[in-house]
């Protein structure tokens, strides 16, 4: 669920050597790949790559469900993938055309099988967690030295939030991430689909609503890095990007990322081939290219997200493989939870609750 800074749909069309070359059309999240890889793909395979980007699962899903998207490879996240498989939006992968499948990491495959049984329709591209990014200096100034930087209590306890409101708190505008976190905080099953249980989170959010400056899923990268806000609930790689931007700017802002110790949500972005892909053959070539250990490592080294490719790990730089915020240790990994898609009725309850939390109506 990588969210770019830009909400524009940017089309990066790479120049082709031959105008008549066969085309592969890929639709991926924005700021989610090392662009040198795209040029390398064209060079190695002689295929013409059209690479478009999006920044929300909802936009991708609407294209998939409308049909005739014209893309050969798309990258939905776990629960979205599962629902789209049920709707018949994807075709099964042909393992014979994907020799690099042997590079994949069983630890991740086991978890993604929850969305895509036997991983028949998709391969993992990147995965990460949803957690808390904090400006250490400011938070400690407001809450004291022992501020619970790694706990959901930091953002869900009204006593903490009242003080943090002074320096600014952003929440993700993504109910599928925030409601499970709130459920975890009150000790309920984060993956509950029971409308009565979900409704319990209203109270949790209403108590802290006055102290939340904004619900947004991309602006927190800059806001954290500039020191405009002191806490954001967001996606791991985004907060790490904020950390790096602050270091580059040398503005005295120190950002840390923590997956909450009570348990944090784990998500997976999966590459799949639409049922009506114009060039499924080329799509397989692309997937196999991405699963190459060195290519996948190059992508992760560039975007600071973990991948589901075991063989790539020896090519990862220490900054990535050695960072427990990206590749969590065993204990943290056990503490991560995943969610399953809501059906239409429950989805409506969730969206409605979220609108109520945000707008008070």
């Amino acid at each position: 669920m990588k969210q770019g800074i830009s909400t524009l749909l940017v089309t990066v069309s790479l120049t082709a050597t031959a105008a008549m070359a066969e085309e592969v059309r890929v639709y991926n999240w924005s700021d989610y790949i090392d662009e040198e890889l795209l040029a390398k793909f064209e060079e190695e395979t002689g295929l013409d790559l059209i690479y478009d980007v999006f920044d929300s699962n909802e936009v991708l899903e609407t294209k998939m469900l409308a049909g005739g998207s014209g893309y050969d490879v798309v990258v939905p996240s776990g629960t979205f993938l599962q629902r789209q498989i049920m709707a018949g939006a994807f075709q099964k992968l042909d393992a014979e055309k994907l020799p690099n499948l042997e590079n994949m990491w069983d630890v991740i495959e086991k978890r993604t099988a929850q969305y895509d049984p036997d991983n028949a329709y998709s391969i993992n591209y990147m995965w990460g967690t949803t957690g808390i990014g904090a400006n250490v200096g400011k938070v400690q100034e407001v809450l004291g030295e022992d501020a619970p930087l790694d706990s959901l209590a930091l953002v869900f306890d009204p006593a903490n939030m009242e003080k943090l409101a002074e320096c600014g708190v952003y929440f993700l505008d993504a109910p599928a991430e925030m409601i499970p976190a709130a459920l975890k905080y009150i000790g309920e099953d984060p993956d509950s689909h029971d409308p009565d249980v979900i409704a319990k989170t209203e109270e949790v959010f209403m108590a802290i609503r006055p102290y939340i400056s904004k619900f947004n899923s991309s602006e927190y990268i800059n806001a954290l890095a500039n020191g405009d806000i002191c806490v954001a609930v967001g996606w791991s790689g985004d907060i790490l990007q904020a950390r790096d931007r602050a270091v580059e700017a040398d503005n005295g802002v120190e950002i840390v990322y923590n997956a909450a110790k009570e348990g944090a949500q784990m998500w997976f972005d999966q590459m799949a081939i639409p049922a009506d892909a114009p060039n499924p053959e080329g799509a397989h070539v692309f997937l196999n290219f991405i699963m190459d250990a060195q290519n996948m490592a190059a992508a992760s080294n560039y975007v600071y997200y973990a991948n589901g490719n075991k063989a790539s790990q020896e090519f990862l730089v220490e900054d990535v493989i050695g960072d427990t915020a990206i590749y969590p240790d065993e204990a943290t990994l056990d503490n991560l939870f995943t969610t399953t898609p809501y059906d239409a009725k429950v989805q409506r309850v969730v969206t409605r609750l979220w609108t109520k939390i945000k707008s008070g109506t």
Partner: protein
Amino acid sequence: MNPRKALLILVPYLWLLALFLVPFLIVLKISLSDVALSIPPYTPTLDLSAGWAGFRDFLSELDFENYVFLSEDSLYWKSYLSSLKIALISTFLTLLVGYPVAYGMANAPDEWRPTLMMLVILPFWTSFLIRVYAWMGILSNEGFLNQFLLWTGLISEPLTILNTNTAVYIGIVYTYLPFMILPIYATLEKLDASLLEAAEDLGCTRAGAFWLVTLPLSRPGMIAGCFLVFIPALGEFVIPSLLGGSDTLMIGKVLWEEFFSNRDWPVASAVAVVLLAILIVPIILFQRQQQRQQEAEQ
């Protein structure tokens, strides 16, 4: 009616049929369907191969359930009302800002007019999205506006404008201003200057002449401008989602949520049909009244 005349009338009617009526019927049809997990995400779909029986089955599955649903949840009418309010206020503000600009342009020396016209149209050469983004930079707490006001000493604390309804008004007025200026300018430019001279000869003051002659004669331009601003402002999505706060309630945002978050095309279509009804009924009534007035004048 001779064939040539019929052909002339046929063209606009065909246009209306292809670009308005057919899409509307498709949306209306979806609004009567039920949501489903499939491609496309609603049911039933019309099976033409089954012939007449298939069509009858298809019709029997349609119902008004989604409209009933809209009436049951206060969110929808509150959003409609809030959108109406925002659209009305911003249309009024746009008129207030746009009229003097158009008046100034119409009274400028002839050789300036093409340049002034160019200046009004020039912003269109930049993407609409980028211009709205620019306002985020101007209105934010650390933005140009606040820095300027702090510098002048008018305020001591930065004003919170971004992510409020005020920012939405500013965004709408800025974006739609040319749509107000151009039609008003067009009517003012054609205004017969001898009418004003006559008014002054007959003892009217300049202000009086403006009030009694210019303003009523420029009414068609003002009305056209107001419609051009009001209609898109009512369904506006980009401006409230970029400049507005989480609590800015507008029907465009609700429509987006229905379509993308809930994946409920039928309810989204029902919201769209109601929006259209809200727009089209007053426009038709207004047109009728205008026509009657014209007939009465003749």
